[in-house]
């Protein structure tokens, strides 16, 4: 957790000053002595830098890592995230619903399901419910793809 905390606080210590710098491009206040659009974001960013600094320093000063380690490397979740990214790339071509059916299959495979019963029946039942509710009942106009 110590290393994760150091990385997290370092990230904020880079991003927050950058955003603070960006606030100088905001237009000035309409009246003298009255705060402008940059006022509140600057307060928030300043506070975040302070808190990140405290987290950073306190974790750097720790000699040992705490026992509550975290496992960030989770192959299943990383594959699921990549699958969802693929969905966003895919749906303009094959349509929103078609892409969802496709990624649902992939997600089931990623989760380790190999039996035909689950891979065949679950998507059919599940998508019948989802499609009936959102498309037929709520009449949500899901985007169709260029090709399907």
């Amino acid at each position, binding site marked *: 957790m110590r290393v994760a905390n150091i990385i997290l606080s370092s990230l904020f210590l880079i991003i927050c000053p950058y955003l603070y710098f960006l606030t100088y491009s905001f237009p000035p206040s309409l009246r003298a002595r009255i705060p402008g*659009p940059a006022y509140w974001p600057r307060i928030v960013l300043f506070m975040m830098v302070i808190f990140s600094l405290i987290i950073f320093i306190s974790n750097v000063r720790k000699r040992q890592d705490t026992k509550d380690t975290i496992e960030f490397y989770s192959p299943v979740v990383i594959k699921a995230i990549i699958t969802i990214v693929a969905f966003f790339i895919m749906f303009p071509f094959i349509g929103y619903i078609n892409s969802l059916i496709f990624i649902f299959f992939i997600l089931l495979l990623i989760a380790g399901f190999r039996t035909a019963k689950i891979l065949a029946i679950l998507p059919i039942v599940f998508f019948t419910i989802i499609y009936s509710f959102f498309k037929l009942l709520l009449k949500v106009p899901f985007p169709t793809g260029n090709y399907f």
Partner: protein
Amino acid sequence: MIDYIIEAFLSLFYIKNITALTVGSIVGVILGAIPGIGSSTSLAVLLPFTFGMDIQPSVLFLISIYGGAEYGGSISAIAINTPGTGGAIATALDGYPLTEKGFMGPALLVSLVTSVIGGIISTIFLITLAPTLANFGLRFGPAEMFSLGLFGLTIIVSLSQTNLLKGFISAGLGLLLATIGIDPIVGTSRFSFGIVTITAGINLIPIMIGLFALSEAFRMLESKKGIYIDTQVVKGLFDTIKDTIKLIDNKRVMAICTLRASLIGTIIGIVPGAGANVAAFVAYNEEKRASKHPEKFGTGVFEGVAAPEAANNAVVGGALVPTLALGIPGSGSAALLLGALMMNDVIPGPLMFEQNGDITYLIMIGFLVSNFYLLVFGGLLTKLLLPLSKIRKDILGCCLIVITLVGSYAYRNSETDALTMFIFGVLGWTMRKLKIPIPPLILAFILGDLIERNLLSALLISGGSFLTFFTKPISLILILLSFISLITALMRERKHSKNKLQI
């Protein structure tokens, strides 16, 4: 007020509202019974299903889910020692030993009845307290509203269960996200980086679906657990009622225990950020302290189930008091309800009682009645729901991912919303891994606009003088309370880390 109450009662007889309460109660209990899905996740997942509904059934659907999920969490806590929700952790302490003794049915019945009583008592408080608090809130000017927002925020952060600093980081992130879009004074776009779709700001609904539902779906993918439960040990409803009446020797003690825990739950629910798990543990400890046989707690006593269950359901009504009266959400789930109301152009706060009295009282009366629905459907369905704990969480995770992608798009037929939801889902999963609490981010995002708008308005009125926040009595009291809550939290954390070092 009476007119609104009568009108709300009458509207509960419409078929669409009866359906909403019925389906909401059943689905709430079902989702709550699945370990890992709390009331917040249940609400976030089911929020998209309300997009096509009128405001009345949609609100009733959501509040019955909220109450149902809080009860549902106790089913897996009692049956398999795996609390379905945070609020049911204390229930497992005596609930599971009762199951081991062969009293799963009576324990589940006690949990159901006390949950319903807790819900009803807290609603009575909600109906009486919220209008008074809202009336008081009408006196608030910009300075008081700023201090109130600040107070809400500090108390949420100081009560976050993990590291205080991480609570602040989470809240800071929420405040920062709230600044994206048009600023309230000059009208310029901030931090939009030329992305047209966020020029006006980021919408709350995709953020909530992502942070609560998608991040939970990712966690579910990592788990493959399913546990066997012998449902045969649970008898039919009527036999269970007979057994329970026989087993509870001192019914007066049980009644007092339920009342006390309901009051504790309501009061803790009113405090923003405290939540069902805090209430359940406080009620459990209070009951243990008040009991003539404290040594029996943890070995399987019915009071050990009644106290946390009455308290965690009473939190729902309590949390709605500041949500409706002041627009300050009492919990993550209340924030989701607030989001659902805002989606329907109803802005919670002191003016809601004047401008949307019909909806306000419908929420309160609807929650009262939803408890009776919970009693009926909880009683009938509990035995059937026990095998739900056997569902593999990774299947559920796959289904949740698809629902979140469909739901976030369906909200405004916007691909950007789906993408926003995905980004926040990944962020939520990362935050859970890093033990950064999620509720402060959501609540800060909601309060961010209120705080900034009122800060700037107050400074505009006072000609830029900060003294305005300290010269108005209500504002001063709220600032002092914010300060006290922070100091107390800091001291608690110091003590906690010292104890950790000694261990």
